[in-house]
């Protein structure tokens, strides 16, 4: 921007800043997001239909945490990523694309093609520490907030503000 002239993208009112999520199956991982400096989400338990795991990986340090919604620690998340966290990373790559996940988590993927496998491998190889699960309650409440979006009444009053958010064929 040195000379003060803005690029076309910078002068656009409707520039796409966040691409839409790609469609994915939600059965195993109903919720995933890149927020609060973490990849975080909710993973359904394979054995108990009423139980979910709240899992997260911190950007930069890859400090990981996994516990149930009743705050019991996940048995698998000792020493390294458990299967819930691995599933979470896989679904994040599906929903947001590997590139955005890599950028957000600041992962250094050797070679050129980043995918769920190489992204997970690159993080595990740094031997990340187990983080505390203090964020679990917050992540779970964000998931409940997310679910609440299904409950709001649609309206036929116009929302002129949506003119700034055109749909886009391009996905993450």
């Amino acid at each position: 921007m040195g000379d003060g002239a803005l690029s076309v993208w910078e002068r656009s009112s409707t520039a796409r800043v966040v691409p839409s999520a790609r469609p994915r199956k939600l059965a195993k991982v109903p919720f995933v997001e890149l927020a609060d400096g973490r990849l975080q989400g909710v993973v359904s338990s394979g054995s108990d239909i009423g139980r979910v795991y709240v899992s997260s990986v911190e950007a930069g340090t890859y400090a990981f945490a996994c516990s149930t919604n009743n705050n019991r620690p996940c048995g698998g998340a000792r020493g390294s990523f458990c299967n819930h966290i691995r599933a979470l990373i896989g679904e994040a790559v599906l929903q947001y694309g590997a590139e955005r996940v890599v950028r957000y988590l600041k992962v250094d993927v050797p070679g050129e093609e980043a995918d769920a496998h190489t992204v997970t491998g690159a993080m595990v190889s740094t031997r990340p520490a187990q983080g505390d699960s203090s964020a679990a309650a917050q992540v779970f409440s964000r998931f409940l907030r997310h679910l609440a979006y299904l409950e709001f009444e649609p309206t036929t009053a116009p929302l002129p503000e949506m003119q700034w958010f055109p749909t886009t064929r391009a996905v993450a």
Partner: protein
Amino acid sequence: MRADLLTDVVDGLDEALAAVDGFDEALVDGLLRPQPAQAVGLAGLADAVAGSPLAGRVAEAAEKTAAGAAGEDHFVALAAARTALLGSVHDALLVRVEEAVGRPRAEAGGDTAAAGGAEHAVNLHVAARSWLCDLARAGWRGIDHELVSGAAAVVSAMLPEPGLRRLATLLDGFAAELAASCPGATLEHVPVRRWADLWSRAMLLTLPGAGSAPAVADVTGRLLPLGVDVQEHATAVQAQVHAVFEPADGGASRLVRASVSAPKPDSVVGAGLWQLLRPHLSLLAAVSEGRAMELDAMPVTAEGDLLWDDARARTGEPAEVFTTARVALPSAAASPTAPLDRHPARIAVPVLLEGYGVEEGEDGPAFLVAGERLAVDVDRVPAAGPLTPEVVAGSGACVGLLRWDAGAFVLQPLAVERTVRKKAVAVHAGAWAGGTSDKAGVRAEKAATDTVTVLRERAGRLLRK
């Protein structure tokens, strides 16, 4: 269409936009401790509105802000000045479009300013404004997760309230973009104009009555759809049907829109959007079936937005979009834009183009209309539909929305006609709005149904404990 008018210079446009850019660039580094260059941008904005009723308040606001001593009222004044400037840009562009298209504009139906507007939720407006002012002080380069997450509580409190849906939806989409861009200090590029747009608009929507757009009349007659425009961010979607309305009393026909919108979880995308909206706007089914609708006392705003009520509409005779565009569109008058909506991003003028050449560029196809190049924004065509960039490129006629962004007019295709075995075949962007038997469409519908089923099952188990 006089396409040459669309590429001609518009007097005063560059000057107005330069004043806007100056202010927008001041927001990049934040207004907590403004540097001399930012003070210049602020003064430029004040100068640009010096001949308007805003002059005194904006001059004071620019001065206080440059000194790092701005209060909320000063930020509101700056947002108003920027909005007024872009309003003038909107007006100049729209005059140009009307000349190019050669259609009438309806008389302004008296004062369209929002009069009523419930005085509810004053404290939510105050909370939103306070967050926006913190943003302005931090600047886009100064945003972090803590600052951005301050919007979540305000949005959650606003969303259940239909009267606050506009501001809530705007803040929700804006905050999500900011969150995805944190920390601002390491951002490679900043969407300078866009974020200043969203910020100013949100600021003004925190003022009492700003967001109200009441019905001014009930209309009875025939509605002929032209096409569907879809807008979405991660947690909201809106579909707007553009149509020609022919009053039953034989009065002049006019351009109208019918909208339906809803908040949504971010994993509901593609065909899932249609599923969410379909049950609340019977018009979407009529669009897919290629039919007109008969309206009986449907409320309409001064801007030409129908406040749709399924009980006041019934499906009518078959109505082909290209016939509507050729026969009814040329004499349909557009309504004046509401004061707060006067912004270039709001321009969406239905047009019919025929006999153009197609040029494949790096950024998608462009139409050559009477020797002028008009970029085609194929990216705005919804993914859950049969209209693809390839179909657009192979077309011979197009019904679309003329828009303006980043210094140029662009065309958003709503439907195209192409010749298959010597017969004209129409392909509509919104063909799947009401449902589809198309193979790919059915698959997309099934996947979308599964998504919502899983979310509802999870919600049922976990939400109400």
